[in-house]
């Protein structure tokens, strides 16, 4: 996954980030009613769900132009490329193992015909109708090449897998390194693509990892072989051209001839086009637009807001800090912060608060906590509960003097709140938090730093309290293991928050009486090793309870992603279809026949 996902909506570019994080929010709940069948994808050539139009014969000579906020020549569809593997382009070019619908919450198998989980063995059976664009069959030799290269480059799947073997042409076996919850392996597999034809990539097997990690397929002499609905044609700094791949197993679903990525730099370019009706773009993926802007859009612009971004604004503490290392202070802060106010200030259209700060993604909280949810402390989702905050601090021996709280040792509660510069909605929420906490008597000042500096300081533990995304991103965030682990171990920042995740801790018990001891990280790791969600549930609850009480991170806000399609020249499937909630609709819908050119 190193190779697969570094480009994944890279946070590096702040302008891109504005678009990603956005400033809006809450009415968004509409259109996200859970439903749909979450089909298992065994629909093969008969391709269920493709609408009335788009037969095998009638391919219309038409180009779908999609907005792309990078320079195409800087990217590649080589998914092993560490820095520049293009997420959108590979979603066009390759078939994926499985897909996850944010609407149904289910996986649907795509290139896979079946995945079988049996203890430490995972058996992957691929479909027999997968072909490369040159007509050759996709076999497990290709799959093996992919896994071997990923092993070489240190990809995340190899965190679970110990070894692999080719069983036959279509069957591939993974031997896991330990008992693992299938859900977790599934999330990794759903992020894999049939992207590595052995004929092209086997040359890298006996070379240094860096060779394949820096290899730009399009610039090489090798044929660019694809397995997905569109194949590569050519590219320039401004555009990246693809054409319909007739060899794709569901090619019948695609009734138009060409796809083009049209490059722009500034986030507002698609906005301007959609407002003015310039007709330059037919779609734009994962592009945030402020609410006032959306109102000005042309009628034919369709907003698709059914994908949970699975990340959002949270607060991270440096647990080595004299002040924030104390649970009482963290709880007081949680009480003071008004999560609904954050949403209102930073973007009421696409953002929503966590109903209970417990490390689980907001939309999954009810499902995992079940009856136990009432035991959890919600710290006041829509209020600034200074009374409770005062109570907590006074109980812990803190006192207020001259308007500022002081530790029992007489040290003032005063610190810098580190936040990334240029992330507009993060900054707004940081300001809101700092204002409320300062009003309350915890004397915080905002300290902004450029993105890289901000990350650097967190990695180096050179901060006291900071803004940081509390969900690790991607579909896997729906599974509590990932966000809980992210907050405890903080691998993304090399554990820079110094949380004693592997220490035995004493916390009040969930039932309300007595205390209990817990080793938080061990508890979270336990989630990974049980085979079913039912068995995982009580463990998740315990881990979430610990998070709720001890607050290694503050889970504050999450958001929906916005994608944009146009329906003046294209037919788009109705709202509520689970395929509208597969990342990302502009690239996913065509292969299902749910985005088709009008005759």
């Amino acid at each position: 996954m190193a190779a697969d996902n570094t480009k994944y909506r890279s946070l590096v570019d702040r302008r891109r980030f504005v678009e990603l994080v956005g400033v809006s929010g809450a009415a968004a709940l509409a259109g996200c009613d859970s439903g749909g069948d979450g089909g298992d994808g065994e629909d093969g050539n008969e391709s269920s769900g493709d609408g009335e139009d788009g037969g095998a014969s009638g391919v219309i000579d038409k180009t779908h132009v999609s907005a792309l906020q990078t320079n195409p020549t800087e990217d590649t569809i080589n998914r092993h490329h560490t820095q520049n593997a293009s997420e959108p382009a590979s979603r066009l070019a390759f078939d994926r193992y499985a897909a996850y619908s944010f609407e149904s919450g289910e996986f649907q198998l795509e290139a896979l015909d079946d995945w079988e989980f049996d203890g430490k063995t995972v058996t992957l059976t691929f479909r027999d109708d997968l072909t490369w664009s040159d007509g050759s069959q996709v076999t497990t030799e290709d799959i093996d090449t992919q896994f071997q290269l990923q092993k070489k480059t240190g990809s995340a799947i190899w965190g679970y897998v110990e070894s692999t073997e080719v069983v036959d042409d279509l069957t591939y076996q993974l031997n896991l390194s330990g008992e693992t919850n299938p859900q977790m392996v599934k999330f990794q597999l759903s992020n894999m693509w049939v992207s590595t034809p052995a004929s092209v990539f086997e040359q890298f097997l006996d070379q240094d990892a860096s060779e394949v990690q820096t290899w730009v397929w399009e610039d090489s002499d090798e044929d660019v072989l694809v397995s997905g609905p569109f194949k590569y044609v050519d590219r320039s700094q401004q555009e990246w051209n693809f054409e319909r791949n007739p060899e794709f197993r569901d090619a019948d679903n695609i009734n138009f001839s060409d796809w083009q990525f049209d490059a722009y730099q500034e986030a507002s370019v698609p906005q301007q086009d959609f407002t003015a009706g310039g007709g330059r773009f037919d779609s734009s993926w994962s592009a945030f637009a402020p609410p006032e802007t959306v109102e000005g859009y042309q009628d034919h612009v369709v907003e698709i807001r059914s994908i949970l971004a699975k990340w959002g604004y949270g607060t991270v503490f440096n647990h080595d800090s004299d002040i924030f290392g104390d649970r009482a202070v963290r709880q007081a802060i949680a009480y003071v912060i008004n999560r609904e106010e954050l949403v209102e200030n930073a973007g009421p259209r696409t953002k929503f608060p966590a109903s209970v700060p417990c490390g689980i993604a907001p939309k999954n909280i009810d499902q995992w906590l079940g009856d136990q949810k009432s035991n959890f402390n919600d710290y006041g989702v829509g209020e600034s509960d200074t009374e409770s905050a005062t109570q907590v601090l006074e109980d812990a021996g803190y006192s207020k003097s001259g308007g500022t709280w002081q530790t029992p040792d007489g040290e003032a509660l005063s610190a810098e709140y580190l936040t990334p510069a240029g992330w507009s909605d993060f900054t707004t929420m940081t300001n809101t938090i700092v204002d409320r906490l300062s009003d309350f008597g915890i004397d915080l000042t905002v300290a902004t730093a450029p993105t890289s500096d901000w990350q650097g300081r967190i990695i180096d533990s050179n901060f006291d309290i900071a803004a940081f995304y509390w969900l690790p991103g991607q579909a896997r965030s729906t599974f509590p293991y990932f966000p809980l682990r992210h907050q405890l171990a903080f691998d993304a920042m090399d554990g820079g928050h110094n949380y004693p995740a592997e220490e035995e801790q004493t916390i009040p018990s969930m039932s309300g009486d007595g205390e209990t001891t817990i080793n938080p990280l061990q508890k979270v790791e336990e989630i990974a090793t049980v085979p079913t969600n039912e068995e995982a549930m009580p463990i998740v609850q315990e881990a979430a309870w610990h998070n709720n009480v001890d607050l290694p991170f503050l889970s504050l806000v999450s958001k929906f992603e916005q994608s944009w399609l146009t329906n003046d020249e294209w037919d788009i499937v109705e709202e509520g279809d689970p395929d509208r909630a597969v990342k990302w609709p502009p690239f996913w819908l065509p292969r299902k026949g749910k985005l088709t050119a009008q005759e």
Partner: protein
Amino acid sequence: MKHTETDAPADGFDWHAESSDVELTRGERFWEFYEHRVYQPMLIAWSDLRTRIGLVVIAFYLLLALIGELGLWRAPSTSQAPRLLGMFENMAYPLGTTSAGVDLTAAIIHSTSDILLMVLAGGVWATGVALLVGVFAGYKGGMIDNILMSVSDFFMAIPGLPLVIILAITFSPENPIFVGVILTINYWAGLGRSLRSQVLTIREDSYVEASRTMGVSTWQIMVKDIIPNLMPYVTVNFVFAARYTIFASVGLYFLGVLPYSTQTWGVTLARAQANGALFVPDAAHWLIAPMIAIVGLALGLILLGQGMDKVFNPRVRTRLAGESETTEEGEDDSITGGTL
């Protein structure tokens, strides 16, 4: 900057003629100094409309800073007001509010004192170092001159803004005085060179010659004979350096490369842009408010500078009835000022 060497002699400053032909007692000297260097110039300055307006504008900003420091206007805070009020829509928030409900008037007032400090620091640093370098190099000549001029050539060779940006990232300055100094880190170089060439002329003048033959120490000559003659030029350039500091600081806050804890004008500008104020008519005031603050202060400084120029440039004053500038000023400004 070679040109200044040629311009200076042509353009010259004749102030010495009035001030130091005769040896004077300390008291007389002081009185004369006050009379010629403070009182009369002030009088002339005030007679000029531009100076008057400039001073009033700057006084207004000082007043804003004072209001902020004394807490006479509410401090900016999120959710303190209805979101996205336009200008003058609600007179409690005359400049309107942001989408997070921050009073823009408050945001501007409460960052004024920081900006003024920054501007002062930038001006003092730029002109102070330039004066030191220019006078030493010009008067001492020889080796010292060579070294100092090589150093200032080096600083002049580094493009201001990119260097400042890199330094800003490296040192993350938050103290407004430090920010001011960083912003003008190499501004002094060009100015120093011009001053040096003026000193080259002055040191040949008879009264300096006289002081020297009388055995007056180098230090005394510099302080008493040379620096006073440079003051007009220095003062005018102080104003330009100050203007440069405002422009650069707002620009860098706007780019997001300077760290900040309060919402300075540049930060407000950047936030407005990031929140789509370019795009959304309802939010345009969010951009306009900080722009007015920036342009107003710069205008005040420019007017003051123009007025001062008239005061300090007697030749132009007498000949051209107070309507012109010296070559050096115009040009020096065009070089550094043109960047921003």
